């Protein structure tokens, strides 16, 4: 495969930086213009090599919502090293396991790793380098197939799998996402997710690729601050998981804080009730709402749904990105006709090479050139995907397959429900049944009976538990195993 400077994805981003490019820290207002982004990335790359690290060495990047973690991630990639971006909380809790799993030669942190957790001969690097390489420092030459990063899978609380993402994967997915979102050359994203989450990384990649900017804000615990920062810094894109949109609707002043520059809301990371999407669109009619479905194993995004293009399809995950082939298949890999539920399988230039050092899971998931997503869906005659749930997230009630996601969607659509989660449990008569956990919109509501009444009789329900909150992973996804334990 041809090796060149242009194939290096970080190098490509540096090259595309323009007058509008910037990285901004919303809490302090610190702004890094395009030429400074380029020099910080190349300085960091040169600094890593001056420490004795070599191309293809792996480096754990402790990610928080700062420009520095994004620069370290891109700088390592620019130098030809393999960045392994990990949420800083996960890294500080499981440093040794992550070091062993990634075989990283170094650990980078914005603050320095506390204590002596980074053992095993790994080099600890804190902060960015201030070396100025003499002359032009080009990105490490590589081919599109070369490994660019190891991205942790999301949705798990333990040590994640590391997905092998190539420079070509990043470029292909970035370009397809840009097309699906209609991103122009004057965009600026508000990022409240770290780049260790593939959704966060995709927002960083797409906006820098277009010569735009990214604003980092770790203050989403105070959503109004983030909303005000979006206005102050002229953000055109906002991205979040369902939890974030529920917060905006019920725990922020979204209704009274104007967002004149906002062009789009991006939502991924699980299903958000169509009623909530409609509500957001009513409150901010000037911005469009894009739902995206994806997986780390497919770099980041797989399909996109624009609510304004097909309001009647609200609740669907849209159509596949233009450079992906998608099929709904049965267990033997046979394509199913429209309307039938099967596994989503995808093929294309953004499907990754597998998991690092895990041949068996790689073989199961990446087979015959198709990525087996483990997500179940059907496709309608217009090509829209309707996701029913993940493998293992179905129950068989009296022989009838019921998707936990479908039950969740039904309950979440009820008035007075803030959030909900459903788990499958054993049942003496029905074989399996569902247990429902509901967070009410306000404490005074008596919801349990109403929820029970709203369910069709064939969905045997053992309990409706009204709770104050749902357990979540660092990426904001619901942790079903914990609920399962809570039920038992």
């Amino acid at each position, binding site marked *: 495969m041809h090796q060149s400077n242009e194939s290096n994805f970080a190098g490509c981003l540096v090259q595309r930086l323009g007058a509008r490019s910037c990285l901004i820290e919303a809490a302090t207002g610190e702004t890094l213009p395009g030429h400074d982004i380029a020099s910080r990335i190349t300085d960091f790359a040169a600094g890593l090599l001056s420490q004795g690290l070599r191309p293809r060495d792996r480096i754990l990047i402790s990610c928080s919502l700062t420009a520095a973690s994004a620069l370290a991630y891109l700088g390592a990639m620019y130098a030809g090293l393999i960045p392994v971006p990990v949420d800083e909380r996960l890294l500080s809790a499981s440093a040794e396991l992550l070091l062993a799993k990634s075989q990283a030669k170094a650990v980078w942190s914005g603050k320095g790793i506390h204590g002596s957790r980074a053992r095993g001969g790994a080099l600890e690097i804190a902060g960015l380098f201030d070396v100025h390489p003499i002359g032009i420092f080009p990105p490490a030459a590589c081919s599109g197939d070369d490994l660019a990063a190891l991205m942790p899978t999301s949705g798990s609380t333990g040590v994640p799998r590391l997905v092998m993402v190539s420079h070509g994967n990043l470029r292909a997915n970035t370009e397809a996402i840009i097309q699906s979102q209609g991103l122009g050359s004057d965009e600026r994203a508000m990022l409240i997710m770290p780049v260790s989450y593939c959704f966060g990384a995709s927002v960083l990649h797409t906006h820098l690729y277009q010569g735009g900017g990214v604003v980092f804000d770790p203050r989403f615990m105070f959503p109004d601050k983030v909303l005000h920062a979006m206005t102050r810094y002229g953000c055109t894109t906002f991205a979040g998981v369902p939890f974030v949109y529920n917060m905006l609707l019920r725990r922020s002043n979204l209704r009274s804080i104007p967002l004149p520059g906002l062009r789009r809301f991006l939502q991924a990371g699980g299903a958000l009730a169509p009623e909530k999407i409609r509500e957001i669109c009513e409150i901010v009619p000037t911005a469009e709402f894009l739902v995206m479905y994806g997986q780390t194993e497919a770099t980041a995004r797989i399909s996109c749904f624009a609510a304004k293009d097909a309001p009647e399809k609200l609740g669907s995950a849209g159509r596949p990105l233009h450079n992906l082939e998608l099929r709904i298949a049965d267990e033997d890999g046979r394509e199913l006709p429209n309307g039938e539920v099967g596994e989503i399988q995808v093929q294309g230039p953004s499907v990754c090479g597998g998991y690092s050092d895990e041949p068996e899971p790689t073989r199961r998931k990446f087979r015959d050139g198709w990525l087996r997503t483990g997500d179940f869906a059907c496709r309608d005659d217009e090509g829209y995907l309707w996701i029913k749930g993940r493998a293992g997230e179905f129950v068989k009630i009296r022989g009838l397959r019921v998707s936990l996601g479908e039950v969740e969607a039904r309950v979440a659509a009820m008035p007075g429900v803030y959030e909900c989660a459903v788990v499958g449990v054993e049942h003496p008569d029905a074989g399996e049944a569902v247990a429902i956990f509901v967070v009410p919109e306000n404490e005074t509501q008596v919801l349990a009976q109403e929820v029970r009444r709203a369910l069709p009789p064939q969905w045997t329900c053992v309990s409706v538990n009204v709770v*104050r909150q749902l357990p979540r992973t660092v990426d904001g996804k619901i942790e079903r195993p914990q609920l399962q334990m809570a039920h038992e």
Partner: protein
Amino acid sequence: MSAEELLPKVRTAFQSTFDIDPQTITPDTTPNDVPAWDSMGHVTLASSLEQAFGLTFDVDDLMAMENVREICKVVQSKLDRVQCAPVQ
């Protein structure tokens, strides 16, 4: 309830929410000092505080809770209002 009585109870809420040593919590503690105090953590913390003090916070209360001192202020003003409310 006095400020001296308030802080220990607030510390207990921090301990149960973030699984940290309550003695590390001072009036000046902010989300920057507690890694798990993110948006999800804030909601959980607010729930623990609501439970501990028998209160319900609104959007602006949550927004005002920028550090432990402000949390105590919000709780105090809520408690005062509860006490002043006429008996039904």
